[in-house]
């Protein structure tokens, strides 16, 4: 099965033509648009959902502050989710208003405690109030803090001094076990977000590209142009050009998704909201990217992509009609799913033997090894060994493809079974 030196001659031309046709199709732009808007939309929805959640964290909407102290307090210092205002009315009037139907209102009275001689902020709610005691207590505490700030300000303390003076010092009692668990929790959370986000990205890359490749190969086969093409270009060049074109298309899709994320962040900034959990999760993964990190991801993704793409190409070539193309993708997708599941299932796991072994398994390693390398869970040696094994598998697939792709493309009739592929491979060796 010695591969001919010129087996890849013409790859560039096939690649250019395939890519050109992708970008001449309106469907491609629709897909890229959907990917961009989908990414932007999902982040916006998540972010807005979270903001809404924050806003809905309180049942209180209106706070009436009856300030009987001599200190001038600023209601703007109250939490953003309530509308706070100083009121001159009496406590009785305020309570009557709350009883009449302002179920989301709270009245806070700042007055001297006769027993202790200290200023005290007391929160009152109406009879039908939906505001919880805890929430009312929090709002009262906020008011008390404003009184304290006003008191310091009255004494001529600068805002910086005030910040130092009022900085809270909390106390707690914890065991050593609690201390370690807390440290692990942060680490695990970062690992889970990073590992999962990376696995999803790779799964998207593999899913889209295998689907594109299978469809392109089946379309070419059913166009009955194959024999004419094979007079001009070797089968390996034919499939390689397609694989590269599909990769470019998927990368374009990923870039559009990235653009969607940037768009979402910009919109959220303009709206004055947080950037959202999705972008934050992605950010935590990208945080670890540096020169070697980028290289680790690129090499792993390239080796994994080539392997999955060749399987997709061979699967596509086994079909004779376009109706078979859906099931043709299932082979590559099934293997990809195993890698994805392994990536997701182990995202929370710390460095260990299991992770190191998974980082060596071809097809699975692309889902796990680069993110683990970025997080420092595995060293370069393990990563390189994983590359070597994946490269060996990719090379075997390339050899298989070179031997059988041509015969598969001119095969007619029922879908080719693995046994027949092996027979074709033996036949190819005789040529």
């Amino acid at each position, binding site marked *: 099965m010695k591969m001919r030196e*010129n087996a890849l*001659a*013409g790859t560039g*031309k*096939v690649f250019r*033509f395939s890519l*050109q*046709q992708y970008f*001449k*199709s309106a469907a491609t732009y629709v897909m890229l648009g959907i990917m961009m808007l989908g990414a932007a939309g999902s982040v916006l929805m998540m972010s807005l959902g979270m903001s809404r959640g924050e806003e809905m964290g309180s049942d209180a909407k209106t706070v009436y502050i009856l300030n009987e102290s001599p200190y001038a307090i600023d209601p703007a210092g109250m939490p953003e989710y309530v509308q706070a205002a100083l009121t001159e009315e009496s406590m009785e009037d305020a309570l009557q208003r709350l009883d009449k139907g302002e179920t989301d209102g709270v009245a806070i009275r700042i007055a001297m405690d006769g027993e202790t001689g200290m200023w005290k902020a007391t929160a009152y709610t109406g009879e039908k109030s939906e505001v919880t005691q805890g929430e009312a207590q929090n709002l009262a505490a906020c008011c008390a803090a404003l009184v304290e700030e006003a008191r310091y300000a009255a004494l001529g303390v600068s805002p910086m001094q005030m910040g130092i003076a009022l900085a809270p010092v909390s106390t707690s009692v914890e065991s050593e076990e609690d201390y370690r668990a807390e440290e692990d929790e942060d680490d695990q959370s970062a690992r889970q977000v990073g590992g999962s986000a990376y696995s999803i990205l790779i799964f998207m890359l593999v899913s889209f590209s295998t689907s594109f490749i299978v469809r392109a190969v089946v*379309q*070419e086969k*059913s*166009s*009955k*142009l194959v*024999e*004419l*093409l*094979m*007079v*001009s*270009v070797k089968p390996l060049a034919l499939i390689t050009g397609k694989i590269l074109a599909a990769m470019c298309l998927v990368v374009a899709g990923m870039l559009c998704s990235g653009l969607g994320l940037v768009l979402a962040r910009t919109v959220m900034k303009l709206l004055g909201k947080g950037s959202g959990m999705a972008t934050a999760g992605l950010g935590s993964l990208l945080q670890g990217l540096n020169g070697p990190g980028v290289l680790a991801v690129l090499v792993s993704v390239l080796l994994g992509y080539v392997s999955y793409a060749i399987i997709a190409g061979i699967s596509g070539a086994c079909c004779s009609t376009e109706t078979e193309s859906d099931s043709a993708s299932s082979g590559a997708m099934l293997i990809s799913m195993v890698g994805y599941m392994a990536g997701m299932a182990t995202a929370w796991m710390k460095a260990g033997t299991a992770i190191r072994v998974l980082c060596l398994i071809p097809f699975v390693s692309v889902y796990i090894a680069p993110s683990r390398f970025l997080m420092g869970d595995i060293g370069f040696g393990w990563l390189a060994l994983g590359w070597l094994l994946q490269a060996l598998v990719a090379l075997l697939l390339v050899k298989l493809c070179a031997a059988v792709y*041509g*015969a598969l493309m*001119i095969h007619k009739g029922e879908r080719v079974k693995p046994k027949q592929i092996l*027979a*074709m491979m033996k*036949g*190819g*060796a*005789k*040529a």
Partner: protein
Amino acid sequence: MSLIVKDLTKKYGEKTVVDHLSFAMEKPGVYALLGTNGAGKTTSIRMMLGMLARDGGETLWNGEELSLEKCNVGYLAEERGLYPKYTLMDQLKYFASLRGVEGAEAAKRIRYWSERLEVGEYLYPEKTTRQGRKVPAPSLKADQLSKGNQQKIQLMMALISDPELLILDEPLSGLDPVNTDLFKGIIREEISKGKYLIMSSHQMPTVEEFCTDITILDRSKTVLQGNLNDIKKGYGRVNLKLKTDRDVGETVRASGATILTEKENEYQIKVRGEEQAMALLRELTAQNVTVVTFDLQEPSLHEIFVEKVGSVDENA
């Protein structure tokens, strides 16, 4: 230049689909590969072009293994198609570039062949602007063309690189008479340019019209091979076309010849040879029969084919 096919063999499991096919083209001309469906013609062509692995044999071009790098091959496959949703111009340019013909040269050749094959209106369509001016429009997509016109585009793809070896698998199948003549004209042109042509066809008159040498395959084996004229001479002049002024059926039968068809004193007769035909003519003259037509010919390729392989597959 020469093309030598030597002991080409292909097996699928225990079944041999091409059994030691050998032939040679020492000089330019047209070689015909004939055979019923499943005889192994297309498989042989695929093996020659390296598309299909072979179990034995070799194909030599100028003494070296035929490869696409060393020999400029044009191929019109039996199974024809185009990318249905891509424009014709894109497809032609793509195929031209794969054959090393690019840029202005590709454009020039596409223009030439589009005019020669009368498909210019599909490759260089025009649209009318609101101001009533005609401006160039993108070329049509393949699925907007009739089957015959698609076939012309495929022939353009085969010829775009000006190949030295042209392989045409059923080149005229599915064409109307006008386009058949157009294709025949182009084949004649290629022959006159000194090209090596291999033609596979079921249309025996076409093969007779163009081919100098033939191989007839039957169920993977070569059953007849050689120069077409020599083969015919070997059979002798045994086909007699006779037209007289009255019914001479009895006389013909009495001479020992076989009447194949008979219609209004016009006969197609099979004789054993020239002597028997001449004896019949003498007998007719002796009976004062007016002989309008007496045409003694060699057997047609169709007859030779039928004799060798049993019957022509009419579905082909």
